């Protein structure tokens, strides 16, 4: 039975964030002064905070999760983190607790920052997926009994270095004894065709690149589908982990649902 492995400190799971940092991510969102890159970083910081608070106990942070972050923009692909966290592809959640870049105050509460906005150049998505695949293959070798890792990809445009789909097809074959790597894609845009969330068939997506992203996305396992339904989404049994043409503000929700895949396995309640 896939996606049932219990998550513990000896069998953690991992989240890999793959973030588009191309030039278009610097564009302002709607009437705000904020860029897409700033929205993405805010969402990333929030999801890390949530994972840390879910793992924080009186004795400290339990390493139920590992997090990796790859950014791609211009011609380069590399860590989307700075400081000590940039030295390794995956870091345990306790290291994130230990090494924020800074801690701001928001609404009277601490708000740590690990991710800062980056935007410039082209969109080497294919290369980024290859880098992610290599890292995830190594992770799965290291943790064969764990709940499989989840890749969460955010982009606002089409790749500038070729079709990433064949790489992602190979990536989908990776996994642990508990199931294949989960791949969730979010495309942020402002097309008049309207947003598409958790589509169940390729026909629901009319855009050519959207169809590729649909095929690159995993069918939602039960835990994510349940988390999405609890938040009011219409999710059928074949729904994919895919948002297309959504506002950047939706990224927070997308990450929150995507990182709930493991909730049943943690028996969180």
């Amino acid at each position, binding site marked *: 039975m896939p996606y049932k492995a219990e998550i513990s400190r000896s069998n953690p799971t991992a989240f890999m964030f793959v973030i588009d940092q191309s030039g278009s991510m610097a564009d302002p969102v709607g009437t705000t002064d904020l860029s897409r890159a700033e929205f993405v970083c805010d969402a990333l910081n929030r999801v890390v*905070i949530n994972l840390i*608070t*879910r793992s924080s106990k*009186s*004795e400290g942070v*339990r390493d139920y999760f590992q997090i990796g972050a790859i950014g791609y923009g211009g011609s380069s692909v590399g860590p989307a983190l700075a400081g000590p966290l940039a030295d390794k592809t995956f870091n345990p959640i306790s290291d994130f607790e230990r090494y924020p870049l800074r801690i701001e105050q928001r609404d009277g509460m601490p708000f*740590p920052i690990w991710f800062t906005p980056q935007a410039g150049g082209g969109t080497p998505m294919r290369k980024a997926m290859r880098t992610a695949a290599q890292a995830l293959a190594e992770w799965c070798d290291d943790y064969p009994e764990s709940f499989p890792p989840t890749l969460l990809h955010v982009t606002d445009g089409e790749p500038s270095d070729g079709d990433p789909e064949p790489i992602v097809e190979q990536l989908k074959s990776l996994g642990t004894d508990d199931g294949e790597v989960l791949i969730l894609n979010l495309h942020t845009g402002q097309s008049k065709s309207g947003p598409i969330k958790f589509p169940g068939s390729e026909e629901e997506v009319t855009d050519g690149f959207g169809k590729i992203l649909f095929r690159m996305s995993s069918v939602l396992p039960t835990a994510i589908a349940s988390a999405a339904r609890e938040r009011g989404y219409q999710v059928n049994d074949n729904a994919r982990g895919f948002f297309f043409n959504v506002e950047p503000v939706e990224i927070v929700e997308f990450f929150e649902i995507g990182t709930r895949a493991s909730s049943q396995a943690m028996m969180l*309640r």
Partner: protein
Amino acid sequence: MKILRSLTAPKEPDHSESNEDFFFWEAQGKACAMSDGASDSFDSRSWARILCQSFTQIYNQVAAPQLDDKCVALVLSVARPFFEKQLKTITTSWSKQLAASRGSFASLLGVIDEPRQVSILAVGDTVAIWMDPQGQLRSFTLRKSLEFSKNPVLLGSESKTDSLLFGSEHSRWGFITIPKVELQSKKLFLMTDALGHYVLNQYEKNRPLPLDLLSSMGQPDFQSWVLAQRQSGGLHKDDTTFALLSVD
């Protein structure tokens, strides 16, 4: 009331300190309590312990207890200041401060031994189980194994959740008084959700019940049994706690 067995096994065998179940009684006392701290909340082990101690200490002293909504409010009013005081000593980092701000949650199963009856308060999915004189298995509050799949109602360390507890979720927790003549051998079993689900599932499928076996076990045997049942897939991997009470 005599506590004939009190056994527990942590979810992570290598981390017994992380066991968030708690069972508390006092020698010569007439009350005891079991609680299961929610894994997804901060320091729920302490919250579970403080809830058990608060219930037990209150009802060891009451001559003719009347379990009602006021008793839950009373337990919370005693427990919360203790917990808040404890939090202040440990929420020293930003992560603990944020985690603590979400509140802590735990079940509570409180039992009071009276001359002719046993009174039980049950909030959440920690259950009391007994055999009636006809040999039928009874349980409170959850009665079917499927009911364990729902998110349980839990007691929160902060009052902001009380409106749900005493409002829309009130039908999912409650009180029961059992005449002692209804308890076969005057025995009552208390257990947290993983074991409660297991026992009810066995009963529904007409499979052998483990109650007699567990009643004869010591702590090492219990931990071995729990590990074996987890590996066979019959028992959910969760903190697992069992107590056997004699109210003769």
